[in-house]
């Protein structure tokens, strides 16, 4: 019995180097071009070849909030993929594999799951094309129009010549025909798409694109997962548009170069992961002390230390809040969605220049590296606020750090006649003259501290108030931040459809924080559950610090894999049923299908090259 759903999930798994990009990414892009909403999350390891990679692609008629944890169709490029996930395929779904490579026993899948083995060599004559061949079979069984996918085969292989394109298209068609002859149409179907033209991008690409739109002219970075794809995007797209992209020797050089460029007057950004940010910390305070506008992106991955280089986590909040010695003004923005990656990056540049401060954009792997569809981006009305810039000085002597009501002093750039000054990391007076060495001037020190810290008042006024999303009279308020927001959003949608009343508190503007306004919202909550991907509940602790409000229940995850929607929903249902007063703290762990006594020593591919 064929069943039509609003969404379905295809997983493409294999070893790194098996061609998951050509098959999985193309499936995601083809589905986008066919008018579906798409969410593609690539679960991968820190190796170049070998290891295990699984791309989770969920397509739907409506917005797809998370990668989901339901598996309908599995394309297995290696045996490991079958061992790990085949059992999870839903009845009515199917498993696709290459019979030349390994056998699959019927008991490896659940009843009602179709197993489609392709004799790739006999069928298409080249094992290298197994990924395209298996996709041909998938399209046949799943019943989706393959036209867009075939178009992508043409695009992807165009550079290699017509013959290669044709060979791949033939492999696709022959496999589709084989599946038609030997299989049955899949029972799990997705309804028709609205056919709307959408964009598909990753969070990192949108941070890059936001920077480009904001007029960023300088981007520096040191390679580090999961921030490297911002570097790559800036090199590919930014460079074409006059952005100077500099890879430096370490993250200390990275941020100092960005600060140097910003001091000279260009809009400047740098990006890294948690470990690189740790190296940058001293310079965060330097930017604040010298009142230099700079945007710093921190993409969190599993910590501590080198931690889980290719896995997601939200455990750097305290690092971001506490980065660099002393008290100084800064802002922290935490985008939660892909469109917010674009818009908050633009906002970050404006805040940085208007207040002459470092602005940190907090992201995490699950947000930065997934590909997701979006309806569009406003490229026609990009707000650019450069703050107070002095281009000419005549008459009264120019004072670079002049005290003011807003704490902001008009900025002259090096090269401006009659405005000469020194920016110092030592405490200094309004002219920039150091007051820390020969004599300290307590009154001047206080004046300058107050001036700088006053900027936070202006920023706070500018920040929108935090909001509750969903029904006002909810029985339960879900609390979260960053990438976890979309998990909360999907959970709310599922639960409220069933008659529950759940709403969401997930602020984007984390520092300075509107504590009083947040408190008002939290006080309305009948019951609260914080969902965050870390061990200690950093966001809940932060809320308590800023609002005095203690969240009742906690759902956490620190295994490196993102939250899984069904597990989250079932946990919430239980909480609602028990009406527990709490506090409860529960951690969830994903089942990656590994055997009990799993050891990497015995794993094929363990000779693989490791990278970070």
């Amino acid at each position: 019995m064929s069943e039509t759903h609003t969404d379905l999930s295809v997983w493409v798994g294999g070893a790194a180097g098996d061609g998951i990009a050509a098959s999985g990414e193309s499936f995601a892009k083809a589905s986008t071009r066919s008018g579906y909403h798409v969410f593609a999350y690539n679960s991968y390891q820190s190796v170049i070849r070998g290891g295990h990679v699984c791309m989770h692609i969920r397509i739907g008629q409506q917005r797809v909030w998370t990668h989901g944890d339901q598996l309908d169709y599995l394309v297995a490029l290696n045996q490991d993929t079958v061992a790990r996930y085949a059992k999870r395929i839903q009845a009515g779904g199917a498993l696709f594999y290459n019979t030349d490579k390994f056998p699959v026993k019927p008991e490896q899948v659940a009843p009602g799951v179709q197993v489609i083995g392709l004799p790739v060599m006999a069928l298409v004559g080249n094992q290298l094309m197994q990924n395209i061949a298996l996709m041909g079979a998938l399209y046949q069984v799943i019943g989706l129009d393959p036209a867009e996918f075939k178009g992508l085969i043409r695009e992807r292989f165009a550079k290699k010549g017509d013959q290669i394109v044709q060979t791949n298209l033939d492999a696709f068609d022959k496999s589709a025909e084989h599946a038609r002859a030997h299989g049955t149409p899949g029972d799990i179907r997705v309804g028709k798409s609205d056919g709307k033209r959408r964009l598909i991008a990753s969070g990192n690409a949108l941070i890059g694109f936001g920077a480009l739109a904001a007029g960023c002219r300088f981007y520096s970075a040191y390679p580090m997962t999961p921030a490297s794809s911002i570097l790559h995007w800036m090199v590919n797209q930014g460079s074409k548009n006059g952005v100077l992209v500099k890879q430096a020797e370490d993250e200390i050089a990275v941020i100092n170069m960005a600060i140097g460029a910003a001091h000279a007057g260009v809009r400047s950004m740098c990006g890294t992961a948690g470990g690189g940010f740790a190296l940058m910390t001293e310079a965060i305070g330097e930017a604040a002390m010298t009142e230099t506008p700079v945007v710093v992106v921190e993409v969190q991955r599993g910590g501590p230390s080198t931690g889980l280089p290719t896995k997601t986590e939200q455990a750097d909040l305290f690092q971001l809040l506490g980065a660099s010695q002393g008290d100084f003004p800064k802002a922290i923005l935490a985008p939660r969605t892909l469109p917010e990656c674009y818009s908050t990056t633009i906002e970050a540049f404006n805040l940085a220049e208007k207040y002459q401060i470092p602005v940190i954009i907090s992201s995490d792997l699950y947000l930065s590296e997934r590909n997701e569809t979006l309806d569009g981006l406003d490229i026609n009305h990009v707000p650019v606020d450069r703050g107070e810039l002095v281009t000419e000085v005549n008459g009264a002597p120019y004072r670079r750090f002049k005290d003011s009501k807003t704490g902001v002093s008009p900025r002259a750039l090096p090269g401006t006649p009659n405005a000469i000054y020194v920016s110092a990391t030592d405490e200094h007076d309004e002219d920039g003259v150091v007051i820390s060495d020969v004599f300290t001037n307590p009154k001047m020190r206080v004046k300058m501290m107050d001036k700088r810290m006053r900027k936070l008042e202006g920023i706070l006024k500018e920040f929108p108030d935090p909001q509750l999303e969903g029904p006002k009279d909810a029985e339960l308020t879900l609390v979260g931040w960053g990438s976890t927001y979309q998990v909360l959003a999907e959970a709310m949608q599922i639960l409220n459809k069933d008659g529950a009343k759940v709403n969401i508190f997930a602020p984007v503007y984390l520092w300075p924080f509107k504590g009083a306004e947040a408190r008002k919202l939290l006080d309305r909550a009948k019951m609260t559950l914080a969902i965050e991907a870390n061990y200690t509940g950093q966001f809940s602790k932060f809320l308590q610090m800023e609002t005095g409000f203690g969240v009742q229940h906690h759902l956490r995850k620190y295994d490196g894999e993102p939250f899984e929607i069904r597990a989250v929903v079932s946990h919430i249902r239980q909480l609602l049923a028990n009406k527990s007063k709490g506090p409860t703290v529960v951690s969830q762990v994903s089942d990656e299908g590994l055997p009990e006594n799993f050891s990497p020593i015995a794993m094929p591919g363990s000779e693989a090259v490791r990278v970070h």
Partner: protein
Amino acid sequence: MISIKEFVSPIKPDWCPGCGDYGVLNALQRALSELDIAPHNVLVVSGIGCSSNLPGFIRSYGFHSLHGRSLPIAAGAKLANHALTVIATGGDGDGYGIGVGHFVHTCRRNFDMTYIVMDNQIYGLTTGQASPTTEKDIRTKSTPEGTIEIALSPIALALTCGATYVARGFSGESLQLANLIKGAIEHKGFALVDVFSPCVTYNKHNTYPWFKERVYKLEDEKHDPSNFDAAMQKAFEWGNRIPIGLFYKVDRSTYEDEEIALRGGVPLVKQTVYRTPDELARAMEEFL
């Protein structure tokens, strides 16, 4: 010519009387004046240390950054506005200790800027600990039994890492020093001027008389600065005779020459921050 007075800051240096850094400041001011560069077109970037206070004592734009970070700040500023004359200054601890990683790579990149290191073989501002250029067996506050490490050779390191102008001066030889700095600023590429700048308070070993007895000028001995091997040999000459002057100079295209974003010649800071919707739409095509 712009008068040397134009480069005199109203702030008096706070260095100890007799500090070698006075000579370096004077030489830098003289070089800029002779090169006729307007003070507002000069950016002097430093790290932290006695000598890193120099930007406060010269009338030009300045950035007094973190300990060891003058070079990346200077590089960022140069890339953003290559019309500026960018000069980094600092000490041996700042540049060859905590900042040596940046030094190595800045040499390699050949940005068109000058780096003046006031090398006094000691940490002065922190009251006399061993530095990367302190000789072996010298007793300092942090090495009461004498240093175990041998001294780093800044000249050899700069040569190895690809600096295209490598010189050493002595603050007791002010005319030669001013000329070396002048040559460094005029040179198109990364120029190192390592300067023996005695610390009269904490270094009782490498004193003015100690240097005066030993230094000789490379130009007096017909050293050929285009000869890399000869420069390398001279770099390790130490003891009774220590060379000062221009060790090596070579023309190589600068980072700015080859950087795509600067191909049009217009400094980044002069380029608009406003992107047109067309530009953005083109960049967005890859999301389709």
